């Protein structure tokens, strides 16, 4: 021991105190000593001196060794206590030991003193150490327990045979809500998970007990229509000697994070698509602006540089100039219109009655409808209202209806069927006609393209379906087309209605 042992000696007689001191000096003990002879001095020394060990005479004038022991106990300190006395009865010794005295030495046999001190201190030291370890263990277990029970993660501990050893409250809730199963200590882990997952999870557990780690995500549809996402981490629990003791499974609800990720992905895809559309738009517009300009240059070159042109050709050049100039103007007007429509997205949304839309359009084009003997059948009983931007919805209906009449079949009166319906999270419009149809095998990608035409015998210029698609997409919807050439064409428009999600 580096520090000298601090010995508190309680003895009324100086001769006896010296005697004991001499005995201590004789031994090889490294010590220092404080000698007190009465109760007050003893109490004071307990506080100020903090001895490592107390050597106490049994019979003192003001108090006995048992009184001294009581005083020590009352302080709450655990200091080894050795009684030194003259001859006493065996019964007395037993009683002393019961009270908590560590050793007892008879004054006639003081040679045993040094070994008694050493042994007592060693015993007290190991006890103290044990006490400290126990306290640490309790503290660390309490810490772990607190973490275990106060986290948002589900934790399940299983042994090498996959029997559940322990789990936290979150884990219990997880299995209750997701699998309607109750987990309990001692159950086979594989039995508390869903039947369809057992083979997969079993395989993973087998690889984990061989020392591997597993990390994966799952989605569960529960309650219906709401997808929850979970991240699972399954790892072996190893002893210091790298022996596998069991498996720790943690399950984290990552639904929010996942939804944000998915939303981000969806938005990126949308932005890429928008960008593509804009590129396409710029390309088409540049072509449609450039084309009449090239003709104007070509025609003026001819007039300037071809003196041999006859009168008819010259007239054709002049007519061509006028035609090209008008075409240029039309394109600029179209361009302006399309840009205008794009900015209409900022208009206020309102409840739109589908019947009113169709009625307004019908009266607006009543001349065309009468002339072509067209018939519009509406089926809006399932969903007769729609919350959206009115000018867009009007334009979508207008373009699809007039297209159906423009591209009518020559041998039958045009009939247009318009149906609305709802599905969870969706509002659906279906337009079906009995017209010329479109050969989609050849033109699927171009159907909605700007200035794309599929029939050469009409006055269409390839704007209608482009506008429809633009407006549907700006309202966050999709449009799809099916057709049987010479039989019918059907457009299906789906708008996504955000669901109220608690």
């Amino acid at each position, binding site marked *: 021991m580096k520090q000298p042992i601090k010995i508190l000696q309680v003895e009324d007689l100086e001769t006896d105190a010296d005697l004991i001191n001499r005995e201590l000096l004789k031994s090889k003990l490294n010590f220092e000593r404080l000698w007190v002879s009465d109760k007050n001095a003893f109490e004071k020394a307990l506080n100020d001196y903090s001895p490592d060990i107390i050597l106490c005479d049994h019979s003192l004038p003001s108090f006995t060794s048992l009184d001294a022991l009581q005083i020590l106990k009352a302080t709450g300190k655990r200091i080894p206590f050795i009684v030194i006395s003259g001859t006493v009865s065996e019964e007395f010794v037993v009683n002393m030991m019961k009270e908590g005295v560590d050793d007892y030495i008879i004054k006639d046999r003081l040679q045993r003193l040094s070994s008694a001190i050493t042994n007592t201190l060693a015993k007290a030291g190991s006890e103290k150490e044990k006490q400290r370890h126990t306290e640490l263990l309790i503290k660390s277990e309490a810490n772990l327990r607190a973490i275990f029970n106060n986290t948002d993660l589900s934790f399940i501990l299983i042994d090498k045979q996959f029997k559940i050893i322990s789990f936290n409250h979150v884990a219990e809730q997880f299995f209750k809500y997701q699998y309607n199963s109750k987990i309990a200590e001692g159950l086979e882990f594989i039995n508390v998970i869903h039947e369809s997952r057992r083979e997969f999870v079993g395989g993973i557990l087998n690889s984990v007990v061989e020392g591997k780690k597993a990390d994966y995500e799952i989605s569960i549809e529960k309650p219906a229509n709401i997808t929850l996402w979970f991240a699972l981490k399954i790892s072996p629990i190893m002893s210091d000697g790298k022996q596998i003791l069991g498996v720790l499974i943690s399950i984290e609800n990552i639904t929010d994070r996942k939804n944000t990720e998915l939303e981000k992905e969806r938005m990126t895809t949308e932005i890429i698509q928008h960008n593509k559309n804009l590129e396409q738009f710029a390309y088409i517009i540049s072509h449609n602006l450039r*084309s009449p300009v090239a003709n104007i240059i070509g025609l003026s070159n001819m007039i300037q540089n071809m003196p041999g042109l006859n009168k008819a050709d010259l007239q054709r050049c002049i007519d061509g100039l006028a035609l090209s100039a008008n075409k240029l103007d039309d394109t600029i007007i179209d361009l302006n219109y399309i840009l205008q429509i794009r900015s209409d997205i900022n208009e206020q949304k309102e409840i739109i009655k589908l019947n009113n839309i169709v009625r307004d359009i019908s009266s607006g084009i009543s001349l065309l409808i009468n002339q072509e003997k067209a018939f519009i059948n509406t089926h809006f009983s399932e969903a007769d209202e729609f919350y959206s931007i009115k000018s867009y919805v009007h334009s979508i209906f207008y373009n699809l209806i007039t297209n159906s009449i423009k591209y009518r079949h020559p041998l039958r009166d045009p009939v247009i069927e318009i149906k609305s319906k709802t599905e969870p999270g969706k509002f659906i419009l279906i337009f079906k006609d009995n017209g010329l149809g479109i050969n989609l095998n050849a033109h699927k990608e171009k159907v909605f393209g700007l200035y794309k035409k599929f029939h050469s015998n009409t006055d269409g210029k390839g704007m209608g379906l482009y506008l429809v698609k633009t407006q549907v997409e700006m309202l966050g919807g999709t449009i799809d087309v099916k057709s049987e050439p010479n039989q019918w064409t059907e457009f299906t428009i789906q708008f996504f209605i955000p669901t109220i999600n608690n």
Partner: protein
Amino acid sequence: MKIKEPKCKYKCAMLIDDNSLDNFINEKTLEANYFAKVIYTNTSATSALEFLKNISAADKNPNGIFPEVVFIDLNMPLLDGFQFIEQYKSKIEPSSKTPRLVILTSSVSVKDQHRAAALGKEIIFLHKPLTSSMLQSI
């Protein structure tokens, strides 16, 4: 058709453009530059393809002169210029003489030029309007 001066550069050329005004300008420019003795004009790539198929099959017929230069517009309905070239190359070219393919477009897009180059290095890419100096380079 009026008989031109005998010193025409080529015997026969073909114009494919859905716009008749463009065909008019191109035809007059070819004529003024004595580019070809015979000029076929087509307002659709589909009909042009059909026509070429027929005269290619009737190769022995002296009346069917296969064009030495074909001018093709890019932006056409139903079958566009690129699709025309693809179909021409796969269906007609292997069994007939190969004319110069000239894309004649109002497009100033670099993408279109790259797409044309990808179809064949020999394809000439010209921007409308057609001029005398362009014709001299063919």
